[in-house]
């Protein structure tokens, strides 16, 4: 999370999954560097939502569309399929209700891009096995008592959740701890052991945008989640 180079690599991979001229929402956009990159390189129409005041302020001052708000509460305002892609980069593990968020991503976006640190990586497994303590790594650098990451999960856990929710994994890319990228499906080695960081492109199988579109959504906050 604090590794700039790895984050940049993560962003470049995210960019590679997105078509030009798309509408993009980045959840937890920080000061907007990723959406700024996508706006510039893909002539995308970009929006972001960011919980931290200091970061949202910087994003707005860059001329980006940034809403200062909390993704756990404030995603309801976005209409169904109002974006081509909704990005959640390195944040799912910090969410109070990750499953609900995942559902929201695919309500708002035609496709979702989710990246996260894999808790099933061999280094983490070894640390827990031999030290008997909660692992601390470059990607997950916090002690258990002050970590923003409250839901740890592995690559396999995430794949299982997608399958349970009928979410189609259109593409999945792994990054090793050395920053080497590989296709998670085509990997010869067990992906859940060598993946340090994973990036998923997701969608729903039976995507029917017109049927799903609701214009009065924000006035009826209980009916926002549709699938």
């Amino acid at each position: 999370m604090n590794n700039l180079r790895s984050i940049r690599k993560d962003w470049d991979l995210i960019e590679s999954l997105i078509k030009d001229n798309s509408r993009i929402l980045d959840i937890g956009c920080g000061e907007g560097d990723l959406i700024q990159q996508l706006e510039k390189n893909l002539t995308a129409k970009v929006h972001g939502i960011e919980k931290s005041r200091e970061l949202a302020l910087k994003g707005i001052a860059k001329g980006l569309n940034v809403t200062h708000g909390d993704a756990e509460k404030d995603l309801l305002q976005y209409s169904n399929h109002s974006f081509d892609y909704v990005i959640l980069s390195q944040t799912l593990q910090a969410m109070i209700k990750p499953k609900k968020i995942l559902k929201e991503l695919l309500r708002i976006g035609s496709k979702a891009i989710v990246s996260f640190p894999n808790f099933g990586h061999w280094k983490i497994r070894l640390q827990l096995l031999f030290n008997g303590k909660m692992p601390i790594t470059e990607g997950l650098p916090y002690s258990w008592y002050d970590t923003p990451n409250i839901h740890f999960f592995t690559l396999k856990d995430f794949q299982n959740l997608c399958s349970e929710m009928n979410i189609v994994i259109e593409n999945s890319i792994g990054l090793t701890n050395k920053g080497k990228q590989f296709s998670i499906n085509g990997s010869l080695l067990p992906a859940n052991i060598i993946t340090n960081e994973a990036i998923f492109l997701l969608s729903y199988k039976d995507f029917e945008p017109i049927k799903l579109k609701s214009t009065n959504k924000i006035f009826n906050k209980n009916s926002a989640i549709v699938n």
Partner: protein
Amino acid sequence: MSNIELINDKNLDCSFAIFKDANLTLESGSILKNFKLAYKTFGSINKNKSNAILVCHALTGDQYVSGHNPITGKDGWWSRMVGPNKPIDTNKFFVICSNVLGGCAGSTGPKETKENEQNIYGRDFPSVTIKDIVNAQVKLLDALEIDQLFSVVGGSMGAMQALQWSIDFPNRVQSIIHIAGALKHSAQNIAFHEVGRQAIMNDPNWHKGNYTENNAIPERGLSVARMIAHITYLSEDAMHRKFGRKLQSRDIISFGFDADFQIESYLRYQGRSFVERFDANSYLYLTRAMDYFDHSESYRKTLEFVNNQKNNIKYLVISFTSDWLFPTKENKEIVEILNSLSRNVSFLEIDTDKGHDSFLLDEPELDYVIKGFFNSNYGKINE
């Protein structure tokens, strides 16, 4: 055919746009045949006229947004924000600020004389709304030959005007900054305004609005109205921080009704000094204009309306944590609608204990975001 005259007034250190036979139809149905707006400009317009920013003032503001105000003898009300090298940089932008229709700093309003008559309007002045105020501003922009504004910015009643611009004239604005406003004036806000108006109208010196003819000024009513309003502009925390229960010019309480406490003395001072610069009838008309402001039903539809489909306005909505007059929740309502329609919107809630008045005060985050928003978007739009 309307006939427009632009003149400079050296004594008042501002300009006047005088519209003759303009026949401005107001929302109430009344028609103002002739009217004038007092305004000031800062900086200079560029070659393709793309750098104009209209600053809209709040309830008791005026055209003296920056520089010296000859009426009060003080600095302009947003001098800290507008000027050379300030967040709204007049080295770069051409800033226009006009006194609202119905105001009392030179624009046509209740204290000005009627068309072709010696008498002033007083209570005969027609009701004006935020929409009417904006329509008059549009005439000024026409007179200045500016087709499109780079931005309209305002706080409080100024935010209402900025929002109204984006609704009625989406093709004439590239961006708006809406600070501490709302889609509608709330019941609580109408209630506070009503108490203020009752204070004025119950002052025996009000004379049903004809106090000028009676050589009187409803000073007491107007100052009480200002005292009430001033409380709503602050926050409990700020009031406590500034005054607490500190006593004024005494060591012990008086067991009477003098201004024992500093807060009392402060409010009395605010009330007294307000009377010197503001017209009581104007206060009635402009508080009413705010009360009538309501886009809670129509805003979404207006934005979806076919002519506005290509609306590319950049919106920035700002609220303050301690503002209970135009709270974050009400500002966010606008943001939620804009986001639900995928408009270009940004929103920021600034953390401060200074209440509604924060937009006029020293808030570094406000300066930073306004400056950044203007400079980066100006570059984007005009590159």
